[in-house]
């Protein structure tokens, strides 16, 4: 789909620059004339929303970093300093903290959309894998960011997570001390987490660039899962998807604003307003909501090393997904069985998230074990089998046919004519 460039330099300067650094051509081909399937629904707007939140997190984070002090004696009070003394510091900090939650909410919708419509299948395997890498980097970044205010949950979350590495046979304890830079979570740990928390978002930014590149080579998947067959199937990204994405973004920002202005602390834990105290363990250590499913998986396994391995395996299995799904049909719209299993899988993830917030005992632990098993059964057994036994529904002839059959609009103009209107 990323065919020959359609960019024509208009001014003398553009022609001059185009022969030296064709950056305007790149932007034009990528974000203006880029041909996108005409039938993308609102689930496809989350890529733009995620880009927006990445930039928001980086911008608010850079300003917060100007006022924050990474020292165990000062971190908590510098956070309060931001809240009380810095102009609009409360807004910056709440936007950054809530922004992390919104970032994950959007990424989960984005990923489940990919799962539903088979966006990970050939020729988009690399696109999917880059997405999983971004997701893993996001989790690392968010975890380290949560440590910075140096409240009770910060400290104990850091203790729990870094201790995971001590499960590695033989070298585990040495690795853990090396990560800490001390014999427990302490000032050197806070300092390196701060440094990495500042670094990782730029790594995410780099991988996002690759992700977009890997998207623009095969082009977007779409709700039918069909390949684009001719020019009629596509419309230029601008203005059609710029305006649709903008609308969806602003609606999503209303949710963001609701939390920032009317419930900024509900997504966090009250204990994080208690300064870190290595001598007092909180009654109940929980991560932020977006990491809860993995926390449930970690604790579902009776052995520490086993729990750590299974938790990392639950991420690694996502990397293999393009080859585990054997069906040749992409979209769940035409896969009656997969569609049901997809929703069961969503439910399984929600249950794991809920159980991640409960103590691992009694019924909650039993259910967590079944839910963990099902998580892997979904990927390792159900998906490979479904492709073999499922009879897909008949596929439409083309994207355009499926769109016009639905809307009953026979008078659609071809994409070329629509593109001509872009200047109006």
């Amino acid at each position, binding site marked *: 789909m990323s065919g020959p460039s359609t960019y024509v330099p208009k001014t003398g300067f553009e022609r001059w620059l185009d022969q030296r650094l064709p950056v305007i051509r790149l932007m034009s081909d990528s974000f203006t004339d880029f041909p996108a399937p*005409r*039938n993308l629904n609102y689930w496809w707007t989350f890529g733009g929303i995620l880009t927006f939140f990445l930039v928001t997190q980086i911008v608010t984070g850079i300003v917060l970093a100007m006022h924050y002090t990474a020292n165990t004696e000062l971190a908590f*009070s510098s956070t*309060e300093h931001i*809240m*009380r003394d810095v102009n609009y510091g*409360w*807004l910056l900090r*709440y936007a950054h903290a809530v922004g992390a939650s919104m970032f994950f909410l959007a990424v989960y919708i984005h990923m489940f959309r990919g799962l539903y419509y088979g966006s990970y299948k050939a020729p988009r395997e690399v696109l999917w894998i880059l997405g999983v890498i971004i997701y893993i980097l996001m989790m690392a970044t968010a975890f380290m960011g949560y440590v910075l205010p140096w409240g009770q949950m910060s400290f104990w979350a850091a203790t729990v997570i870094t201790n995971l590495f001590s499960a590695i046979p033989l070298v585990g304890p040495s690795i853990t001390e090396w990560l800490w830079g001390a014999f427990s979570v302490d000032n050197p740990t806070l300092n390196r987490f701060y440094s990495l928390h500042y670094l990782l978002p730029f790594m995410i930014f780099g991988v996002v660039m690759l992700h977009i590149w890997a998207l623009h080579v095969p082009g977007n998947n779409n709700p039918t899962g069909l390949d684009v067959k001719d020019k009629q199937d596509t*419309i230029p990204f601008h*203005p*059609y998807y710029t*305006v*649709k994405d*903008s*609308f969806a973004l*602003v*609606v999503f*920002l*209303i949710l963001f*604003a*609701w939390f*920032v*202005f*009317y*419930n*900024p*602390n*509900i997504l966090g834990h*009250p*204990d994080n*307003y*208690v300064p870190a105290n290595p001598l007092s*363990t909180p*009654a*109940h250590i929980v991560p932020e909501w977006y990491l809860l499913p993995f926390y449930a998986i970690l604790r579902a396994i009776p052995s520490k090393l086993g729990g750590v391995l299974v938790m990392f395996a639950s991420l690694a299995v996502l990397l293999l997904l393009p080859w585990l799904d054997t069906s040749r049909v992409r979209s769940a719209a035409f896969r009656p069985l997969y569609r049901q299993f997809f929703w069961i899988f969503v439910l399984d993830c929600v249950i794991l998230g809920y159980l991640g917030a*409960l*103590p691992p005992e009694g019924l909650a632990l039993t259910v967590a074990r079944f839910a963990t098993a099902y998580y892997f059964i979904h990927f390792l057994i159900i998906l490979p089998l479904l492709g073999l036994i499922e009879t897909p529904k008949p596929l439409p002839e083309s994207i355009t046919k499926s*769109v*016009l059959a639905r*809307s009953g*609009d*026979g*008078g*659609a*103009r071809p*994409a070329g004519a*629509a593109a001509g*209107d872009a200047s109006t």
Partner: protein
Amino acid sequence: MGGNSNIIRLRGLLAAALLGAVLAGAGGHSRAAEGTLHPGPQSWSFAGVFGQFDRAALQRGFQVYAEACSACHSMQYVYYRNLGEPGGPGFGEAETRAIAAGFEVTDGPDETGAMFTRPALPRDHFASPFANEQEARSANGGALPPDLSVIAKARGIERGFPRWFIDLFTGYQEQGVDYVYALLNGYEEAPEGVTLQADMNYNRYFPGNQIAMAPPLSEGIVEYHDGTEATVPQMARDVATFLMWAAEPTLEERKRAGFQVILFLAVFATLLYLTKKKIWARIGH
């Protein structure tokens, strides 16, 4: 600590299972299991989208803090100047200066290298009752009275499912201040069969019920300047309001800004939707 938390957790689960009972307990409190009571949400003037602090309650609450709590509890992140800032108790400039002058703070070193005390200025943090943690513990039988600057955000109450989910969209964020209010009203005789440890007091709402802090409020320990009767519930309410403001001094500004931002976004979204409709009308979809 772990055992108590399990009881609380279990209670939360039970409360979730007995949804009806929990809902019936709204506004008051529900006894979900024997022992600790579940503090119920109070009605606060600063709750909700248009919430604002009750200035008189903030001023009374400050008086309760200054005359009762501040003997043991610091508020190290609050400045005297905050008392006169918009969105706060609304003391005037001269009044704020006079309040500050009533406290002594350590300053220095002076030109001879010695530390000295002087009356506080509006730019100073609230004076702390103890020089350090050790002194505080030593004066309180080994227990450390927590700093109260953000206490209203550092405590919560167990809401149970589905309450916590509903809370996401109702803007309920008074868990901490509800807990503080309940705790201050929660002192009573230990029920039969409960043996208190030395120097501990029984409190219905404190996790585990045994709290080192002696009942801090009693009828009439404060004589309100505005003539309000200083009952324990009244003082608890006033000081809880004050602590909420201290934890979140920009609450009013935040809620005001939020209304403007969301209104703007709603209008902007409508315009974008209409634009999108018009642009997409060019093609079949």
